[in-house]
């Protein structure tokens, strides 16, 4: 079996494992909980459904130039969609992990949105350079976006790993499983990019490593989604805990504040209806005195 056959085999395994993972999600009714992950798998399946016939029919049933053009745009468009969905997967994992601490969850969400927005803007800006063709621009922008998402994913994996006990989770929980699978993909992505910048001729080996990594990630997801997870433990924090204090502060941060009028207030500052309400209230309050 040569490397080309191994790559072909891995492609089929990847497609089958994506379908299986989506099937398990549907069977376990977890699609609503992990909607971005389901969309991610669906994008992969759709991309395979278009790319694989194109690769096999190129130069035979379909003109090879047309087949390559279609393959190019399908590949990079689905890669970009997957990178963006990756951000949403991280976001949903964060939301689920932080669900018991609403205040910190809200604060983290705000920070995440800003970080993701800035990262996307930097990725697109860095793709611009003089004399860059549209094809190169697409490749650079999508690659940069994916690398940023991979770094964020690894940060999230580290966070989940460190905060797993304080959050009442265990290593058998789905939140950890999904972030671990995503971490495998992110590491493969970053190692692949570093590898290509040094050894630009080992494409077959690169494809084999990449194909194996995604199969491992999807198998991890499928296993974690299929196996029932232990119940989330109750989080007990001491009253002096900084987590608790920051959570309370964060809860109060977004509230609409009350207003206090200071200084001299004249009746013309109020609307006629407000003046009428105050006049009636004053009359009611004065009523027993008047009698």
């Amino acid at each position, binding site marked *: 079996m040569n490397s*080309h056959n191994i*790559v072909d085999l891995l*492609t089929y395994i*990847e497609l089958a494992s994506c379908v299986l993972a989506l099937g398990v999600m549907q069977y376990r009714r977890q699609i609503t909980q992990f909607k971005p992950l389901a969309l991610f798998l669906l994008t*992969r399946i759709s991309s*395979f459904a278009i790319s694989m016939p*194109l*690769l096999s029919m*190129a*130069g*035979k049933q379909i003109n*090879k*130039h047309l*087949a*390559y*053009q279609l*393959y*190019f*745009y399908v*590949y*990079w468009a*689905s*890669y970009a969609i*997957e990178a963006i969905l990756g951000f949403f997967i991280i976001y949903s994992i964060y939301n689920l992990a932080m669900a018991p601490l609403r205040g910190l969850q809200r604060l983290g969400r705000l920070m995440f949105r800003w970080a993701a927005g800035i990262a996307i803007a930097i990725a697109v800006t*860095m793709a611009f350079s003089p004399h860059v063709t549209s*094809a190169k621009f697409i*490749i*650079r922008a999508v*690659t940069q976006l994916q*690398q940023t998402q*991979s*770094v964020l994913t*690894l940060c999230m*994996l*580290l966070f989940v*790993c460190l905060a797993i006990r304080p959050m009442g989770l265990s*290593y058998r929980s789905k939140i950890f499983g999904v972030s*671990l699978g995503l*971490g495998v*993909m*992110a*590491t*493969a*992505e*970053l*190692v*692949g*990019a*570093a590898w*290509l*910048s*040094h050894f630009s001729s080992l*494409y*077959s080996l690169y*494809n084999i490593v*990449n*194909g194996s*990594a*995604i199969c491992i*990630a999807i198998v991890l997801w499928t296993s974690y989604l299929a196996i029932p997870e232990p119940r989330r433990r109750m989080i007990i924090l001491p009253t002096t805990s900084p987590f608790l204090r920051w959570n309370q502060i964060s809860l109060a941060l977004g509230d609409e504040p009350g207003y206090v009028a200071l200084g001299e207030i004249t009746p013309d500052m109020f609307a006629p209806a407000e003046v009428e309400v105050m006049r009636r209230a004053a009359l009611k309050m004065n009523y027993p005195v008047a009698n």
Partner: protein
Amino acid sequence: MKLIVRIFALTLVVTGAVASTHIANASQPALGARTSALPVPMCPPDDPNACGIADPSFTGR
């Protein structure tokens, strides 16, 4: 078991961090590829040879 899982996760994070340092120090902008066994189309879409897509050993480059 917990320790193995924890070490595995931390290894992933450290490997990713080292790889991203390599990418940042690369002389040319590093062009990655999707984590998949599918060939990566690196040639422009109007490539005169269609990047060799019709060849049995098509790698996308």
